């Protein structure tokens, strides 16, 4: 028991060391990267937050949402409309965006948590697409397929570097909060529902309520990602809500490794930078991404981190065997 605890502490210290180094790298990134790559880094961080929110449901609760982008876009629209149309306070607009995503998440989640597996995926997709269609067709309110332009952050955040630090701050804080949620008793309950929902139910846990809470949290964080992205990009468009966009966090999670907390982040970073690189010489990005997905699925089951984790474990076991330990 005691050794177990010290071991755990060790691994946390090790992990902390890695994260610290990474964080310092992120802090000095603006002085290393060109403005173009800095904006790609911003996008990667924002999309990573979306992927983390998705993975709370997928990796920990065990349900695949194919409508996560709807909350991202919905919140983005809320911010864009409040800032451009009524000149609402910027910070309160961000809060309103997150709240909007959370409230709509509550309504959508109410229906979705009744279902499991592939049915859950289809239903989240259908509701996401419904939100997309409403925004797309409601031309005189949302601007339809023109989207909304001219969404500016306050003056001191207008430079890319300043906004980058803002995104980094929000991302780090959100990732920490999500991490704590997953480590909390609530997160453990989610995991137990993933492993065996029947047994969890026998423990007297109301599965639907827990899943609904997780759904709303995930929608809120997806909304936060959308809320901070739109002022950086200065505009919002209906395709932000589309299911094709919702596929990106799914892809990122499976690419990185869903059971690992930072797996989706790694996946999203690879995808975003790969995207930026591919766009340099072809406009046919989707076909490249499609091929990439197939390659990952076929050759890297469990994702990159999952694959690495598995290999490391194998090596460790081998070492233990040669040492003669059980």
């Amino acid at each position, binding site marked *: 028991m005691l050794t177990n605890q010290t071991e755990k502490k060790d691994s946390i210290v090790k992990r902390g060391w890695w994260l610290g180094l990474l964080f310092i790298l992120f802090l000095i990134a603006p002085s290393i990267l060109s403005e173009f790559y800095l904006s790609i880094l911003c996008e990667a961080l924002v999309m990573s937050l979306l992927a983390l929110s998705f993975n709370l449901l*997928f990796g920990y609760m065990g349900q*695949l949402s*194919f409508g996560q982008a709807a909350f991202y876009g919905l919140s983005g629209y809320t911010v864009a409309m409040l800032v451009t149309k009524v000149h609402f306070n910027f910070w309160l607009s961000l809060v309103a965006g997150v709240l909007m995503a959370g409230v709509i998440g509550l309504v959508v989640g109410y*229906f979705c948590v*009744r*279902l*499991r*597996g*592939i*049915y859950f*995926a*289809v*239903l989240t*997709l*259908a*509701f996401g*697409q*419904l939100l997309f*269609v*409403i925004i797309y*067709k*409601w*031309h005189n309110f949302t601007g339809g397929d023109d989207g909304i332009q001219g969404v500016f952050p306050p003056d001191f955040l207008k430079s890319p570097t300043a906004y980058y630090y803002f995104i980094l701050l929000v991302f780090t804080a959100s990732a920490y909060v999500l991490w704590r949620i997953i480590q909390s008793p609530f997160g453990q309950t989610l995991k137990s529902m993933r492993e065996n929902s029947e047994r969890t139910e026998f423990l007297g846990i109301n599965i639907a309520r827990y899943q609904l809470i997780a759904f709303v949290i995930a929608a809120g964080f997806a909304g936060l990602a959308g809320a901070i992205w739109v002022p950086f990009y200065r505009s919002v468009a209906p395709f932000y809500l*589309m*299911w*094709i966009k919702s*596929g990106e966090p*799914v*892809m990122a999670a*499976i690419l990185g490794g869903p059971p690992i907390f930072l797996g989706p982040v790694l996946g999203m970073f690879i995808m975003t930078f790969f995207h930026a690189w591919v766009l340099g010489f072809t406009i*046919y990005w*989707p*076909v490249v*991404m*499609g*091929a990439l*997905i*197939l390659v990952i*699925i*076929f050759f890297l*089951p469990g994702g990159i981190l999952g694959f690495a984790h598995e290999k490391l474990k194998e090596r460790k076991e081998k070492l233990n065997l040669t040492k003669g330990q059980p």
Partner: protein
Amino acid sequence: MMSFDVLFNQFLSGIARAAMLFLVASGLSLTFGVLRILNFAHGSLYMLGAFLSYSIWKFILIPVVGFYVATIITAIILALIGILIEFFLLRRLYVRGWPEQLLATYAIILIITDIVKYGWGGEFLSIPRPKPFTGAVFLFGFPFPSYNFFVILLGLGLVIFLWWLVYRTRLGDIIRAAAHDREMVSALGIPIPWLFTWIFVLGSLIAGLSGAVTAPFGSVALGMDIEIIVECFAVVVIGGMGSLPGTLLGSLIVGEVYAFGIMFKPELALAFIFIVMAVVLIIRPWGIFGRPER
């Protein structure tokens, strides 16, 4: 308020829409019922069918029956594409979890969309309506395109064919048994991979057929796949995934709700569909004819 003839006209266009939806959704539902794979790319196969039929029609240039010939050739080509997809991609994923299968079909969407973009560009294409369905039929003084009747008839034909296939043939017995308990069927000596290939090919063939049939509506364009597939998801969710009677009922409901919804508020016609879907799900979360999942 509304006269009977207006309502009847709307009802009829709802039926035509339902027939179109059934043409697409039945393939989706059949594949899901047997393979337990939700083929996201079904809509993309349908879109590919529409574009292919346009090019084939233009290439062969046979008067009068050109459209029908093009439709048949398209369906066959799509069936061949179905074999390729099943054999080289899906077959390797049956042992994996369904999220990976879903993601694989999502990848196929991306690839097909780009192929269509590369091959045909972004313009709207259309085939003139084939004889003898060029004109309009007057019902209560309203013109109703006679091509819509062709689509309704085709939908009806497909309903009968699928009913016959699933409930009256030996293959149908196997299909129903496999949907129920795949391992048991395999234990009885029936090669499951073979069955899966044929079902997927049939689904692709139906997708190609429905794509070709939609070409004379003048809506062959990029994005047509996503437009219809989302409605098809609503159809299968309402009717119950994997159930053919459910797909038929779901198509009728969605088609009619859309047709009447468009009368009240055209922008929100699609929203009405989802409201109906939500109501159905409150009462029966697994759809009208669906089975509760394990």
